[in-house]
């Protein structure tokens, strides 16, 4: 297939038999072709090719079909023939069919449904590219009937292992929303999960989906704000643009104006004279760097999160993508302290060298910026000099900017430059230059005279357009200071004879009329001449002649009354009704008839009132209210979907909403020294890299995909490290209340913290015994403690609301809820736990170490030993799964390779999410991996096969009933209600003897929590302990209450699932009796 062949087939998509191309072009009406025209057989050969069983023929046919699609010709009648090939094994045919489907499915909805099952099958394909493209096509077919199927597919894809599939899911969200806006609420839920995704690949697309379906839900950003800031540098460039734009809006709603102190000052300052001093100030401040300015302006302290955004965005000014640079520039323009905005100027200037279309947009944004902050661009004045080769719209923009930048100091150079522009052969540009000179003259008083002289000189120019423009501009200038310029008015009066451009003539007439007292001799003469030529004048001139006549009639009735009468009579019979109207109106005023007009007495006041001088301001001044860099700004009109940039709030909303709880890091990978180390540092570090449950997900995925580029990683680390150490610093700077937060974080595994030098401080705090922590905090006391508890309350409120929303409960890790944080929420006392003896409603903070079970003994595993434990966190793979941590140890002689799960045999309804393959496990090395199992609320074991190289071992994982639960928060009242409902058959109880030791509050709670993954519910009765949980798979409520009466404890378990209730009771009994 040579090149010519392609071209040919592109040129004649239709076989030669077709008669004329007219029908094919009517692609708006699908019915128009095929049925009623004579050549309904025109695609017969294509159909035959598509039906053949040779891939080559099919491919050739598909290529021709795609050619038609590409050309915009109608190919819809081939739909049945094409859609059959959706099952083709050949990838290219498949791809082309997909292309065709997305184009025509909307028109042929019924037939399109035939293909859906193929996509559904492909959604389960092990190849992530195939899964992703199936989702892409499925979501692109725009057939309303399949909206529920799309919804399901999206929900599934959001949980997918592959970030690429998740990215595709993010793209599918707005597609579904466009198809069926009613799904919005469901989609937001899905989106919430995607926003929490930690991979850079997904971040941009998730934010884009957010912008398209629910830009008003700014609260969804809170938890992800710091993560987004920190990921920003690594996100692909297109994602960076949308993220920065969203964060700009976010910053405007959540932080206070960094320039609030100066606002008043800034606004009072006259607009054009400000620059001199301002510049110096700005330059100085720039030199001092960012740190100083916070101290300098004592009353305003920038929120560390605000600072974080600015700092993370700054390196992006060096991006090769102009849209990214512009996004950062607008962020600084709208959200940065004044002293820092200057830093973006240089980068914007650099963009001026790119393609002219980009230049146009950049220049129009710069033009707006210069109306506000001229000092910023003054050093780059020369970069805006116009070249004769620039297109007109760019010339005009540059001129605008030069005019905006004009100050006393640089006006002379600018005017010299303008002089060369005036002689340009491009007359529109020359005229615009003259207006620009006028603006400079009006704003900078020193040069007004020079400019006026220059403009007067231009009036003798050979080109009429130039002359006319100068007249108009002079008129405006004179209007500002008429007293001094009699000579010029005389000069202009004389020019009436020569100038033919109507606008200029009208301007001169108006000027003479207005200042007729200064030229008393000339004015009547001018009127006389114009009365003669009145009939041949343009309308606009006629109106001004009437004005002139009226004014002269008032000031100099002796000479002009008759002339005036004559002109008015002429106008009375004019063809233009405006002029006739005007004549009638004026006549009543100046030549009142017999009955007289009331107004005539006030004619002088009406016509010769002092008029305000026109203000020559930049055209770009009114664009200020549009956000820079937007389409609305460039077009200077509101476009559909434009989001107004909100005003700064008066007072900053609560900053604690952005705090994120850390989940315990169960996963430890000593085999990946540097990268994971750096990564962890990042995580530990805290608030910035927030982590929802997708945390482990991310790192494990990264690792699997990066295995090949280990070498690269080593070198890349220095970057990551320097970056994170910087972040570390800043996190330490953060306010104390946040530090407190961090110390309340769940205890981390110690290896982690020891890796992290820069983190010693926090790590130490974290290692502290929970008790100490609580006591210490209570000691701090005072307002701080109160504040912290307030913050925490808010935090937990969030959790509560999320919890009720079902799937999103993934954000709550049970670890967190067991810590004092939970206690703080549920009880009114900020101290919690031991520091408050006998707190009636307090909940004990108890840490239960998960128990390890042997999965594979080293003898039966030929040296490979595996233990597993239930982490009791929400599984990253699915909320229905129990998260299981496997610890693999290699006790054999040689390294083990490719450890993975093989065959999986489970009961129907159960699911297993295997752990990522481990490439090698060195001798004596230990590694941990996470997997997920959905036990479907049964204690049936899952039979797995662990493969290590060639060897295969059969193992069983089973869960005790306590592990099938996840903690559930509820109030005491709810608990009582639910317990009432679950009486009778659903209740199991037993009495257990306890002694002094095992009868303590702490011992009982520990026993129950060891037996099952429950959450303690506050209880008003000291001797009754209540616990709640839901089962993982079905979400059935499980309630446990323990009532202690001397030496006896009565344990009651209420659950809809009786089996679970009985088994849990037995387990609790066992644990308690052991003690």
């Amino acid at each position: 297939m040579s090149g010519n062949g392609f071209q040919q087939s592109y040129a004649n998509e239709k076989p030669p038999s077709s008669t004329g191309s007219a029908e094919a072009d009517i692609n708006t009406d699908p019915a128009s072709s095929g049925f009623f025209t004579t050549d309904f057989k025109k695609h017969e050969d294509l159909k035959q090719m598509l039906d053949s069983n040779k891939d080559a023929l099919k491919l050739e046919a598909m290529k021709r079909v795609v050619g038609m699609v590409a050309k915009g010709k109608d190919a819809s009648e081939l739909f049945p023939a094409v859609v059959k090939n959706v099952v083709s094994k050949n990838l290219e045919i498949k791809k082309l069919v997909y292309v065709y489907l997305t184009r025509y499915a909307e028109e042929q909805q019924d037939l399109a449904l035939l293909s859906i099952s193929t996509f559904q099958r492909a959604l389960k394909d092990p190849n992530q590219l195939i899964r992703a493209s199936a989702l892409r096509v499925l979501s692109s077919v725009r057939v309303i009937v399949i909206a529920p199927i799309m919804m399901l597919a999206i929900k599934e894809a959001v949980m997918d292992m592959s970030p690429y599939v998740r990215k595709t899911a993010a793209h599918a969200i707005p597609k579904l929303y466009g198809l069926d806006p009613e799904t919005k609420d469901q989609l937001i839920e899905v989106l919430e999960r995607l926003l929490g995704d930690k991979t850079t690949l997904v971040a941009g697309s998730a934010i884009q989906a957010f912008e398209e379906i629910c830009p008003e839900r700014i609260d969804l950003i809170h938890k992800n704000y710091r993560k987004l800031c920190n990921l920003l540098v690594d996100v692909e460039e297109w994602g960076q643009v949308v993220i920065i734009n969203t964060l700009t809006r976010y910053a405007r709603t959540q932080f206070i104006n960094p320039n609030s102190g100066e606002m008043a000052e800034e606004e009072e300052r006259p607009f054009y004279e400000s620059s001199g001093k301002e510049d110096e100030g700005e330059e100085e401040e720039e030199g001092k760097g960012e740190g100083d300015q916070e101290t300098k302006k004592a009353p305003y302290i920038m929120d560390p999160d605000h600072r974080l955004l600015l700092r993370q965005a700054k390196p992006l000014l060096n991006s090769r993508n102009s849209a990214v640079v512009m996004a950062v520039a607008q962020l600084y323009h709208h959200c940065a302290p004044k002293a820092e905005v200057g830093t973006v100027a240089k980068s914007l200037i650099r963009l001026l060298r790119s393609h002219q279309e980009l230049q146009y947009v950049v220049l129009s944004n710069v033009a707006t910026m210069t109306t506000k902050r001229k000092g910023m661009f003054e050093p780059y004045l020369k970069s805006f000099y116009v070249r004769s080769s620039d297109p007109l719209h760019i010339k005009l923009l540059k001129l605008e900017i030069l005019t905006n930048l004009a100050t006393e100091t640089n006006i002379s150079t600018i005017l010299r430059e303008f002089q060369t522009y005036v002689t340009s052969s491009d007359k529109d540009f020359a005229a615009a230059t003259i207006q620009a000179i006028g603006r400079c003259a009006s704003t900078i008083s020193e040069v007004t005279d020079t400019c006026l002289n220059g403009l007067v000189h231009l009036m003798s120019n050979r080109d009429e357009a130039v002359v006319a423009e100068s007249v108009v501009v002079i008129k405006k200038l004179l209007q500002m200071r008429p007293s001094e310029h009699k000579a010029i008015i005389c000069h202009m009066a004389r020019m009436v004879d020569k100038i033919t451009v109507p606008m200029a003539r009208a301007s001169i007439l108006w000027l003479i009329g207005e200042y007729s007292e200064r030229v008393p001799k000339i004015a009547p003469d001018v009127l006389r001449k114009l009365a003669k030529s009145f009939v041949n004048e343009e309308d606009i001139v006629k109106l001004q002649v009437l004005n002139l006549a009226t004014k002269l009639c008032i000031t100099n009735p002796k000479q002009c009354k008759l002339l005036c009468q004559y002109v008015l009579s002429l106008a009375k019979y004019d063809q233009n009704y405006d002029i006739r109207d005007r004549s009638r109106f004026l006549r009543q005023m100046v030549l009142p008839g017999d009955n007289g007009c009331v107004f005539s007495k006030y004619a002088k006041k009406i016509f010769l009132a002092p008029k305000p001088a026109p203000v020559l301001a930049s055209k770009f001044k009114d664009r200020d209210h549009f956000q820079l860099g937007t389409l609305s700004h460039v077009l200077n009109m509101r476009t559909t979907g434009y989001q107004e940039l909100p005003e700064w709030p008066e007072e900053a909303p609560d900053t604690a909403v952005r705090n994120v709880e850390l989940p315990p890091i169960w996963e430890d990978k000593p085999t990946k020294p540097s990268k994971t180390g750096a990564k962890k540092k990042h995580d530990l570090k805290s608030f910035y890299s927030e982590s929802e449950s997708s945390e482990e997900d991310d790192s494990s995925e990264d690792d699997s995909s990066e295995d090949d580029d280990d070498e690269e990683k080593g070198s890349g680390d220095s970057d990551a490290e320097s970056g994170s150490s910087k972040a570390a610093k800043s996190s330490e700077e953060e306010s104390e209340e946040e530090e407190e937060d961090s110390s309340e974080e769940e205890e981390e595994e110690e290896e982690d913290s020891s890796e992290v030098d820069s983190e010693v401080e926090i790590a130490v705090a974290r290692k502290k015994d929970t008790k100490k922590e609580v006591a210490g905090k209570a000691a701090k006391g005072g307002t701080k403690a109160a504040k912290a508890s307030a913050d925490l309350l808010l935090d937990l409120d969030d959790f509560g609301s999320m919890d009720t929303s079902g799937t999103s409960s993934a954000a709550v890790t049970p670890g967190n809820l067991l810590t004092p944080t939970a206690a703080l929420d549920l009880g009114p006392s900020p101290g919690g736990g031991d520091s408050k003896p006998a707190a009636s409603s307090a909940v004990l903070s108890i840490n239960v170490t998960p128990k390890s079970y042997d999965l594979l003994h080293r003898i039966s595993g030929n040296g490979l030993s595996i233990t597993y434990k239930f982490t009791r966190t929400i599984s990253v793979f699915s909320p229905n799964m129990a998260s299981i941590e496997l610890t693999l140890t290699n006790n054999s002689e040689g390294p083990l390779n490719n450890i993975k799960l093989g065959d999986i045999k489970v009961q129907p309804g159960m699911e297993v999410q295997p752990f990522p393959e481990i490439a090698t496990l060195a001798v004596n090395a230990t590694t941990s991996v996470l997997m997920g199992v959905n036990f479907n609320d049964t204690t049936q074991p899952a039979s797995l096969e662990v493969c290590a190289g060639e060897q295969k071992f059969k193992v069983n994982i089973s869960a005790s009933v306590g592990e099938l639960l996840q903690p559930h928060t509820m109030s005491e009242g709810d608990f009582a209600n639910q317990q009432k409902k679950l009486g009778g058959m659903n209740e199991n109880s037993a009495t257990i003897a306890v002694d002094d030791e095992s009868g303590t509050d702490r011992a009982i709670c520990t026993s129950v929590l060891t037996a099952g993954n429950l959450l303690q519910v506050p209880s008003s009765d000291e001797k009754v302990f209540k616990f709640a949980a839901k089962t993982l798979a079905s979400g059935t409520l499980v309630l446990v209450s323990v009532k202690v009466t001397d030496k006896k404890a009565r344990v009651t378990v209420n659950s809809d699932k009786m089996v679970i209730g009985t088994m849990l009771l037995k387990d609790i009994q066992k644990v308690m009796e052991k003690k």
Partner: protein
Amino acid sequence: MIHSLFIINNTGDVFMEKHWRSVINKSICDYFFEAQSKATNPEDIPPILSTPHHYLINIYRNNLHFVAVVTTEVPPLFVLEFLHRVCDIFEDYFGDCNESTLKEHYVIVFELLDEMLDNGFPLAMEINVLKELIKPPNFLRTITDTVTGKSTSVGATLPTGQLSNIPWRRTGVKYTNNEAYFDVIEEIDAIIDKNGTTVIAEIQGYIDCLIKLSGMPDLTLTFINPRLLDDVSFHPCVRFKRWESEKILSFVPPDGHFRLMSYHIGSNNMVAIPLYVKHNISFREGSSGRFDVTVCPKQTMGKSVENVVVEVPFPKAVLNVTLTPSQGKYSFDPVSKMMTWEVGKIDTSKLPNIKGSISLQTGAGIPESNPAITVMFSISQMAVSGLKVNRLDMYGEKYKPFKGVKYLTRAGKFQIRT
């Protein structure tokens, strides 16, 4: 985001359209044609047009108009940058991006467009990722395809780049000859005054690379005088932190051609102007005029100035010119009134000169200003800013690559006002 794309040739034929969301009829282009008819030349069409329901964002490249249709608010630079990137990718795939190449490879073009955006938002824009998904056309492969009847132009697996944190590089690159070439190209933008004084002179520099290295090489490039560079933009592969702290370029390069960095040296620095033009252009009453231009080398640092071309856009009133160049050839386009003089290399012993007479249209009046002269030239083996590459080191791979650095200075927008 981006709804649809129409590619329109110079004659106003919409020869390709791609819709990423629902279909928009190509009659939307009528708004574009209207704007086109108002503009005197294609560059003057406003890049952003507003129609009642849509917004058209267009670029003009290689005699083709790329018109993107958007329906809602979107950063316009986002779309413009995307359109230019699309052109760049086509150029990389087909060697050129014009009507005939696009038509010839329409299937690949269409597949590429489909892959680049999903629902109007960029999905895969890295050339290395795209090349794994859709193989570029290749003569040899076309033959084998025809013979074997198989087509392999679509990749079956997700390119590793798409998932890794270095999406620009593909894995498993293998070359028998490992080479890395760097071209330091500097363009001088200048406006020279009537009297020969420099109004403004700036340097726009690029480092373009051709990297053919196996495996995952990690390169560092150091300069002798990195202080020169204060305004730079980088390919995403460059580690910005390293640059900030040590002023070295440290990167894992993409495979093949790419622009490593571009930099801008502003008008605050002194820029050596390599040549000046002595000119004497005058129009006289009576429909005639004189034209006399000499090109002289100025600060060339001992290098010869080559490929000199002088362009003079004469005013509309000029009917024709009759000139005699001392070297090279000249041509005059009577429609656009553009005189182009291809001088070639400047011989310092005999300065190139062109002179002769101008004939004006009768009754048109004398043009009041002289045309601005545009000069093009190139000087090889010199970077006018003085930037010099110190060394290139490679880590992460064992073999010894062949390394080469080339310098070139040429005229950017070099204009002389007369």
